[in-house]
């Protein structure tokens, strides 16, 4: 088996490195503590949302409600968590639990996850509109401080990305329960036959997704200082793209948390890279599509080499 096929993480790392090198070349100012933070700080909530999506893809489902959910969390964070922290925490915990319940129901009733999450995206969106019919709210001070902290050596964004990747790698790849969860994606019948309660496992995976979704919403509010009901809708597609860019696959429980984080960084960087290119406004949108295709085309090389094995 080829080196690339064994280490699916190589490709995302190389794409990110190439893009980063090009960005530095075009915009040397970015090559600084300050520059890196500006380039990547908005990637932190995206990375967390991507991890949330990955938890669902890990068990062979797909979540079309991540964006709406993160928006709802952002609204809760900017209102309840700020005004009445205890109530806010309770609501966030309830949201995580409802995510877990959603996973359990999807499995117990053998429902297609894509439809249930599509329906839930309306529900989350509606709840967010209840809480914030018009943009507003304010980030809790501690959250704002946390997201704008200036650690020594490396900017917050980089530290956060490394931390997220490390924690989720331990959780999903190294730990025993993470292995079982990936097993659910690989062959849930075999996991069930080994005596596991697959409904509970799915609830756990969805609950973890909910947890990371909550973290994503909180991180986002920490950066933007306020929220609105539509604030993170595009995270749904971004998170799916991030998981795939990071070497994950839609089926079979093949996911890489490190790759997912790198995928999220790459997507964020790609957008910046384009704005440094100063394209005509007509083509700015299309160029984002083109660069997505380019980055993913590198997978082709990877697939060809790997396919030979």
């Amino acid at each position, binding site marked *: 088996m080829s080196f690339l096929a064994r280490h699916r993480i190589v490709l995302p790392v190389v794409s990110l490195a190439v893009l980063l090198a090009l960005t530095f070349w075009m*915009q040397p*100012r*970015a090559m600084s503590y300050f*520059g890196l933070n*500006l*380039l990547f*700080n*908005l990637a932190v*909530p*995206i990375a967390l949302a991507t991890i949330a999506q990955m938890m669902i893809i890990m068990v062979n489902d797909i979540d079309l409600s991540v964006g709406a959910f993160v928006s709802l969390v952002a609204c809760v964070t900017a209102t309840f968590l700020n005004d009445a922290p205890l109530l806010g925490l309770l609501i966030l915990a309830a949201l995580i639990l409802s995510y877990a319940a959603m996973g359990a129901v999807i499995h117990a009733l053998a429902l297609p996850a894509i439809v249930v999450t599509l329906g839930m995206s309306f529900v989350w969106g509606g709840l*967010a*509109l209840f809480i*914030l*019919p*018009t*943009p*507003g*709210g304010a980030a809790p001070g501690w959250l704002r401080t946390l997201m704008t902290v200036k650690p020594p050596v490396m900017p917050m964004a980089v530290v956060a990305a490394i931390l997220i990747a490390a924690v989720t790698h331990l959780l999903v790849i190294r730990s025993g329960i993470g292995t079982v969860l990936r097993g659910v994606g690989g062959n849930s019948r075999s996991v069930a036959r080994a005596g596991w309660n697959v409904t509970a496992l799915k609830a756990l995976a969805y609950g973890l997704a909910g947890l990371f979704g909550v973290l994503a919403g909180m991180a*986002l509010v920490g*950066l*933007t*200082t*306020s*929220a*609105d*009901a*539509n*604030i*993170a*809708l*595009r*995270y749904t597609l971004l998170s799916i793209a991030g998981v795939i860019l990071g070497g994950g696959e839609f089926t079979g429980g093949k996911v890489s948390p490190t790759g997912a984080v790198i995928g999220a960084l790459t997507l*964020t960087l790609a*957008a*910046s890279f384009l*704005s*440094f290119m*100063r394209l005509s*406004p007509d083509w*700015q*949108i299309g160029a*984002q*599509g083109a660069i997505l295709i380019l980055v993913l085309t590198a997978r082709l090389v990877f697939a060809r080499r790997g396919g030979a094995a």
Partner: protein
Amino acid sequence: GSHLQDTSDKRIALSNNYAGNSWRQAMLATWEETAEQAVADGVVAAADAYTTSENQATEQAAQIQNMILQGYDAIVLNAASPTALNGAVKEACDAGVTVVSFDGIVTEPCAWRIAVDFAAMGKEEVDYLATRLPEGGNLLEIRGLAGVFVDDEISKGIHEGVAEHDQFEIVGSVHGDWAQDVAQKAVAGILPSLPEIAGVVTQGGDGYGAAQAFDAAGRPTPLIVLGNRQDELQWWAEQRDANGYETLSLSIAPGVASLAFWVAQQVLAGEEVPKDLTVPFLKITQDTLDEALASTPEGSVANVSYALEDAQEVIAAAK
């Protein structure tokens, strides 16, 4: 004024969150015109326009951060959210960048705001209806995109107006997402359950779709307040010629982008500019209809372009 500094080495960027309708396209066109001329005249060194692919505050925040990195001296901003960009705007101000927001303004105190009083616009619609329909009647409200600041403001103004003129009652309210086809669909869906409608209050751009929906349902065309789109104006002119239809059309002019450009230039030049400026909205009445229709390109939006003098006037008025 001679107290002003030279801005010929300054670079200005336009951060735009959405390009998906004719209003925004007209806005981008006006910006381009103004910018090209200003660069050619040596007023500024560059004035580049950037649009995000998705209408999302997060993406626009990233865009603003990139502009900081690129070393622009000023950022002219049509914001996706009045508050969610505050983090990025603050970062820009801290980096010494002048931020001027218009149309979609931001609440961050360090930025300048060129605001349209959207609530007043909503109220004016009802005030107008009150003059035309003194005995009142049922109103249908077509709103924009839920959860967006402008939608909420205009709607607030409309409701304020209805409270004031209690001969009116809003019997139905739908979200048309500022898209013709969505508005048409929403109106068609709610019409069967509504009593007779005397007037339709809109947020701009939905009038033609509403007229189509009334037509398809075989209902008499009510008094629809329009939003300056050329197709609306043309429909209005046709109706006027056919049966003397009379109404009012109002909206913010896309050319406000050029006003924002000049305000930013003035700030860079060292002019004392108050943080809050207002521009009037562009109103088209029965009398100015033909004139407006003649000057609006087919399929576009009625527009005015602002020059440096207009900006100076607005600034002086606010002082």
